[in-house]
């Protein structure tokens, strides 16, 4: 039974710390209450629990432009966050988990600005057919959370650019994103600011749950656990090492011949490299295979591998250039 309503607003915009806080609120939050957690991430693509990072976002482009890739605990597709996007999370006992009720809070807050918010399917909120909020859910033991995005005035050019399919050929298992037409709420109603939306969300939550909101305070234990989990969320293992196998391939023709690479990637590591060419000696393709297998699936690790073997410099340079052009 819910007997209180707590609010927690994150002050920082680091995605790893914010996701860590969310998990701490889930696992160590007040057992008797619902927590409404409000947070923002700067320049981040957040992928679902069981998605392949390379398939869902243009990772190298994102990172070259200073963005970050994060993975959340809940399922579903990839989303883009910046300070024009406000995230909300309801954390509560599993037995009180009620998606329509939680969405009611969000819809009521939006309607207070005159936005004709509607629930679309299980996961989206739309206005006039345009999506402004995506929602996802996670259940663990006796607790559950429901979180979602609210596009206020996010950079939709970046959103489209980072979430567009990568050019490289990649086949991956895992959960695929569903693309939607999205729009910022500020375009529909210019008076909406982050602060005003936060106030309306709290007011709407107070009405729907019928409690006066209290500010939640992190205990020293919760803060320590947040620091520990921040490292987990920032780790390559969590972000890129998920058990979502993928096959990557690329091919290019050079003056000396055509080379194609086929890489099997498991938990972020190249487990098998197929190197095929009409030019190189078989021994040479074996050398390249050995230089890549067992390494991280990242441009730098693959380049390091190629620099560690003795091959003709012009061939090495061409293969390195080919790898540098891939969206890995």
């Amino acid at each position: 039974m819910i007997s209180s309503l707590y609010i927690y607003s994150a002050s920082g915009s680091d995605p790893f710390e914010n996701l860590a806080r969310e998990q701490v609120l889930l696992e160590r939050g007040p057992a008797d209450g619902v927590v409404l957690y409000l947070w923002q991430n700067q320049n981040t693509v957040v992928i679902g629990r069981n998605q392949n990072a390379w398939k869902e976002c243009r990772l190298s482009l994102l990172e070259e432009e200073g963005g970050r890739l994060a993975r959340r605990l809940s399922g579903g597709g990839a989303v883009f966050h910046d300070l024009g996007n406000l995230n909300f999370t309801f954390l509560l006992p599993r037995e009180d988990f009620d998606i329509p009720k939680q969405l009611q809070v969000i819809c009521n807050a939006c309607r207070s600005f005159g936005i004709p918010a509607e629930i679309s399917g299980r996961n989206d909120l739309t206005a006039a057919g345009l999506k402004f909020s995506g929602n996802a859910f996670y259940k663990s033991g006796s607790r559950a959370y429901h979180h979602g995005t609210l596009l206020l005035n996010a950079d939709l050019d970046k959103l489209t650019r980072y979430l567009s399919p990568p050019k490289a050929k990649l086949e991956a298992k895992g959960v695929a994103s569903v693309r939607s037409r999205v729009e910022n709420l500020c375009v529909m109603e210019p008076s909406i600011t982050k602060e005003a939306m936060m106030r309306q969300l709290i007011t709407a939550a107070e009405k729907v749950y019928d409690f006066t909101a209290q500010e939640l305070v992190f205990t020293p234990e919760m803060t320590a656990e947040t620091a520990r989990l921040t490292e987990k969320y920032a780790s390559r293992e969590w972000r890129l090492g998920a058990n979502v196998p993928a096959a990557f391939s690329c091919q290019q023709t050079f003056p000396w011949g055509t080379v194609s690479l086929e890489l099997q990637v498991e938990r972020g590591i190249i487990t098998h490299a197929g190197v095929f060419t009409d030019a190189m000696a078989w021994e040479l393709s074996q050398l390249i295979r050995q230089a890549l297998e067992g390494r991280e699936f990242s441009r730098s690790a693959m380049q390091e591998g190629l620099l560690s073997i003795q091959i003709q410099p012009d061939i090495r340079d061409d293969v390195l250039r080919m790898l540098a052009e891939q969206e890995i």
Partner: protein
Amino acid sequence: MNFPAELKYSKDHEWVKFEGDTAIIGISDFAQDALGDVVFVNLPGEGDEVNAGEAFGDVESVKAVSDLVSPVSGTIVAVNEELADAPETLNSDPYGAWIIKVEGVTAQEELLDAAAYEAFCAEEA
């Protein structure tokens, strides 16, 4: 709803079948029904240790990601890799679609027999 009598059940809705020293683990009919259509199973690796009451993987359905909670402690000796390609088997055949096999069981959660588990599910529903 089906509750085979030869199995034991945890309150996290996993089933366990003991075969000699091996515990075979899957999710119950009640669990698959509550999850809805399963779209992905995040499987652990062979050789991983599991602890009773702790997550060893997760199931993503159209509704949510839910942790898979191990009813026993021990070492994973087999993983049903077929679920990686056919996660929907958890819906169509929950008692055939085992997830992991665990050996060297040192501890287990409170396990219910079929009748007690059916009563437990009736309360939760």
